[in-house]
């Protein structure tokens, strides 16, 4: 199946999941109140996060136009017309490219001063291959969400399963899972990340897997600890005494009581994944099109003479804004959901 079809299906799935989650949450008073409080405390950061999500989704939905006309083919953009273009790409003209660098809003090329095809229309200028930096920056949002969001969406349920299983069942299962967790936790995370990417090879899936393997242990540990506590609580004991089946106890009584931890962990993991990808990009192990890669590419441009900053500025503003917004939302979420048990973790 073509990549863009998978991506479209994924978006549809995610949207369904999101709607379902919101619907479920809105039925509980606790979550409803927490949501209101969050909106009250961090309206701007939440809007920013929402915008990034919107951008990411827009770039993930793509389709191929019907076969091009002979005239278009002759004009030389046959390939561009046959490539799937995302909703985000469609905000820009199809041939929004120059030959090479151009400054923001410039009319001529940065080196050599040849006239541009789209004078004065590149808000953030163009990069070495003449691609619009604003366009690239916006597209970076999808990669960041993929790295941060999708990875944590996959990692957290897995960690939850392992943590809860270990904590609830105890005994040999607990020992085995605890052993795996402490083994992974004993490898310094940057080294673990590098070793994983080296061994698995380069590519978006591999990077996400590596980030996931590095990231799941912390949360699984917390989930295990909390489950240990919950297991001994009166109402769980009571449920057991009443003969409620074990899976049902876990689903009804244990997991719902861990949901606030899930939300907080999601926020923490999200920003750490995105920042880790930037480091990996710098080591040449990152994902194509990420902000980290744009920064890596742009660091050489700082010493170009005359200096070129718009590429760096675009990518680092994107990265900075997203992480800042997520951190701010995360702080608020933590305060609202969990004033005591979780201190700042590093």
């Amino acid at each position, binding site marked *: 199946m073509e990549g863009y079809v998978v991506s479209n299906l994924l978006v549809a799935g995610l949207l369904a999941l999101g709607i379902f989650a919101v619907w479920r949450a809105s039925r509980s008073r606790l979550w409803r109140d927490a949501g209101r409080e969050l909106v009250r405390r961090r309206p701007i950061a939440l809007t920013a996060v929402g915008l990034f999500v919107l951008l990411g989704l827009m770039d993930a939905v793509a389709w191929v136009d019907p076969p091009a006309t002979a005239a278009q083919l002759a004009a030389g953009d046959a390939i561009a017309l046959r490539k799937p273009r995302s909703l985000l790409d469609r905000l820009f003209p199809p041939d929004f490219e120059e030959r090479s660098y151009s400054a923001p809003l410039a009319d001529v090329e940065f080196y050599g001063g040849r006239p541009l095809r789209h004078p004065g229309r590149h808000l953030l200028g163009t990069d070495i291959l003449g691609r619009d930096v604003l366009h690239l920056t916006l597209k970076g949002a999808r990669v960041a969400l993929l790295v941060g969001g999708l990875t944590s969406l996959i990692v957290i349920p897995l960690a939850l399963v392992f943590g809860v299983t270990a904590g609830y069942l105890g005994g040999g299962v607990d020992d085995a899972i605890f052993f795996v967790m402490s*083994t992974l936790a004993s490898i310094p995370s940057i080294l673990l990340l590098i070793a994983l990417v080296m061994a698995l090879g380069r590519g978006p899936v591999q990077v996400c897997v590596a980030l996931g393997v590095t990231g799941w242990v912390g949360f699984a540990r917390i989930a295990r600890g909390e489950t240990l506590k919950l297991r001994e609580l009166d109402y769980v004991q009571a449920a057991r005494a009443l003969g409620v089946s074990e899976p049902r106890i876990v689903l009804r009584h244990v997991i719902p009581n861990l949901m606030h931890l899930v939300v907080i962990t999601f926020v923490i993991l999200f920003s750490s994944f995105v920042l880790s990808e930037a480091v990996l990009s710098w080591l040449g192990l990152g994902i194509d099109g990420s902000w980290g890669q744009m920064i890596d590419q742009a660091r050489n441009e700082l010493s170009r003479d005359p200096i070129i900053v718009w590429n760096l500025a675009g990518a680092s503003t994107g990265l900075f804004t997203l992480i*800042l917004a997520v951190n701010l939302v995360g702080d608020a979420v933590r305060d609202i959901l969990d004033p005591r048990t979780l201190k*700042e973790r590093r």
Partner: protein
Amino acid sequence: MLAYLVRRLAWGAVTVLGVLLFLFLLFFLITTPDDIARKALGEKAPASVLEQWKKNHGYDKPRFWNPQHPADTMLVEHFRRMLTFDFGRSDADDVPIAERLRRGAGPSLSLQVPLFVLSLGVAIALSLLVAFFRDTYIDRSGVVLCVLAMSISSVLYIVGGQYLIGKVLRWFPISGFDPSPEVIWRFLALPVLVGLVANVGSDVRFYRTVFLEETGRDYVRTARAKGCGEGRIMLHHVLRNALIPILTQVVISIPTLFLGSVLLESFFGIPGLGSITVDAINSNDFSTLRTVVYIGSLLFILGQILTDLAYTWADPRVRLE
């Protein structure tokens, strides 16, 4: 106490074995020895040389199971070598790995120790300051600054620091390293400064919560009720009681100082262990990478054990499990 120590050490040993098994699975299942040998010797190396090379590096045995000699497998060899610290030679250029790591430890430490001490000092000073002025504009803007600082990618700090301080202001050499005492500080100043700035945000935020946690406790209220000055409370009561979480942070970090910093070292050209790691990535030197990860985990586990011990020593109330 002794029984606890023994149990703790035994668990540490089991974890080390786990790490070794993980590394084996990661590195020996995914790349084949033939690939590594080809890469090291070039395309035209004759088969006999390849075989000899694989033999020298211990890559010529069956991986898991050898029907004739059950102990003669790569798995056993891997554990034997790592546990006896006989790391063998680099896949990329045949240099003894132990020798290379020994050489790298010095530069790494000379960067990490000052960075660590300064970071700790600055972070504690700043966070005390922020906690001291809590609920004033200093505290509020301090927290915002911390979040801002944490949201910037560390790569950007390095790039910016080199450009601004190295190139525009010309305070220190942009990069490089020379271990002679006369010039070493010139090379270390910039990476230490950059590392300091890059870390300070999250450090201050962490210690601030630690201090605020303490200031909320009963004994502080009691001291205040007794008419004790705020500064005295901060330094004599809060700082002293916050020493335990700080100690935890410090002890766990000490062994990993040997590992250096992958980013700082390779960007500033400091030939420490972090640099060696990056070189190993770039030259597909799996044996060196494996060893670095192993040593790193070993030090990390050591740090955890030390922390636990320090913890029980510093706070006798901590229950020995």
